[in-house]
């Protein structure tokens, strides 16, 4: 086994920062609060920026600032490591979707643009405008070209999403390979598998055929498309996933509907990531921290949005995910 590089300073700093992660208990308390304002106050106690008075609907800015702060910390700690790209590429692809749709539909999508990608938004804009992708990563260039080609054939905006999502997963898998870290590679493989499982359920629910499923199939997971093919037409797909690592998700969640299934998928990934908690010197805790923070922000978004829409605390609590700490 090749010796892994050690990062005592970075891991120790992350250990301290982990103390500021929201526990499941705290998140449940937030779900119990009557006012959104009290939730936001809890967030500031844990290091989030505060929302300007009376502007609770601006919370999205706070969450995005927090996420960018996290990316910045990791970049500062290990500037020579590139595993962070595994997490950043999805922001690029989100922006590409917005930009391409802006172009084909001549509408303004700027409010959907996210910060924190690997490429500056301006650069993406320019590349699309000039149809010149020479400065972009190869997989990204191919995905844009494919998206435009599919769109011109079908005139369907959905095809843009499909082509870019495929590209995003390929890019992510490649970034994991480049990072050369087994933990990161295992993480992306699980992300791909779980995405496929969710698509599988959704597509079956919408009565789409297998070809439609294969359109959204993310390469890079451990479950091959043939397993999905075998399970697709049957009444009891759980049987077909018995031999995979994900059999428990099916057993617990298949009957309970999509929201619950999605939550089980997130919890499964968290369970994997948690194994990094007990590693003292190598990169794993940094990767895990990034995921933990992203997951935390996702749950906070669910809570705040639900609060603003006056959904009952009980239902919100059911949606609160497992946390890293």
């Amino acid at each position, binding site marked *: 086994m090749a010796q892994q590089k*050690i990062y*005592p300073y970075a*891991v*120790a700093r992350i250990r*301290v920062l982990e*103390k500021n992660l929201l526990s499941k208990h705290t998140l449940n308390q937030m779900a119990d609060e009557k006012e959104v304002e009290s939730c936001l106050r809890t967030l500031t106690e844990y290091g989030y920026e505060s929302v300007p008075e009376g502007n609770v609907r601006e919370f999205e800015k706070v969450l995005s600032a927090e996420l960018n702060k996290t990316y910045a910390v990791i970049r500062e700690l290990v500037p020579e490591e590139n595993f962070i790209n595994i997490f950043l590429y999805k922001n690029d692809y989100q922006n590409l979707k917005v930009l391409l749709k802006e172009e084909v539909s001549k509408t303004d999508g700027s409010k959907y643009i996210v910060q924190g990608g690997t490429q500056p938004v301006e650069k993406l804009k320019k590349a699309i405008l000039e149809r010149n992708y020479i400065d972009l990563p190869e997989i990204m260039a191919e995905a844009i070209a494919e998206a435009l080609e599919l769109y011109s054939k079908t005139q369907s905006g959905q095809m843009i999403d499909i082509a870019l999502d495929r590209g995003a997963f390929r890019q992510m898998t490649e970034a994991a390979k480049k990072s050369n870290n087994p933990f990161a590679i295992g993480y992306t493989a699980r992300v791909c598998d779980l995405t496929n499982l969710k698509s599988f359920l959704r597509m079956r629910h919408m009565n789409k055929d297998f070809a439609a499923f294969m359109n959204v199939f993310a390469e890079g997971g451990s479950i091959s498309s043939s397993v999905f093919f075998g399970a697709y037409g049957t009444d009891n797909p759980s049987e077909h996933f018995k031999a995979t690592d994900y059999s428990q998700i099916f057993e617990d969640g298949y009957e309970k509907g999509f929201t619950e299934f999605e939550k089980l998928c997130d919890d499964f990934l968290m369970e994997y990531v948690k194994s990094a908690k007990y590693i003292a*010197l190598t990169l794993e805790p940094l990767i895990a921290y990034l995921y933990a923070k992203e997951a935390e922000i996702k749950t906070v978004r669910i809570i705040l949005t639900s609060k603003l829409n006056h959904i009952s605390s009980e239902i919100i609590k059911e949606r609160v995910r497992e946390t890293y700490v």
Partner: protein
Amino acid sequence: MEFLSAISDGQFLAIAGAAIAALFAGMGSAKGTSIAGQAAAGVVTEDPSKFGQLLVLQLLPGTQGLYGFIIAFLILSKAGIIGGEAIPTASQGFQLLAAGLPIGLVGYVSGIYQGKAAAAGVGIVAKKPEELGKAITFAAIVETYALLGLLVSFLAYNGITVG
């Protein structure tokens, strides 16, 4: 021929033994305290109040260097380099050289590994400062083997009669 007689000189061999003890044990400690120190610095960046507790953990892998130094000092004094009158013969020189090996080699390896254990302990203190004792215990277990190395080096040294 002059070269051969120089390297089989008793005093030269004794110095080589002292050098091995001081060199390798010192290198082990330098690496170990550096690993633990980096981890401690990571915590202090976010939480300076933990400096005192973390310093103990950083110091633990520093003892190997000290042990190596003690053995080196003893060997040098027995060989008549610092004080003392007796000059070792070639075979006594080889004996002193061998006596320096245990603490030198065990000190090198245990210093590095103790540093890693101490860095892991820093992770405990980062989250639960009240568990400092446990963090120290884990790192201190590694110390046992450095001590055993020191003991063997010392017993060997003690049994060698020079002159």
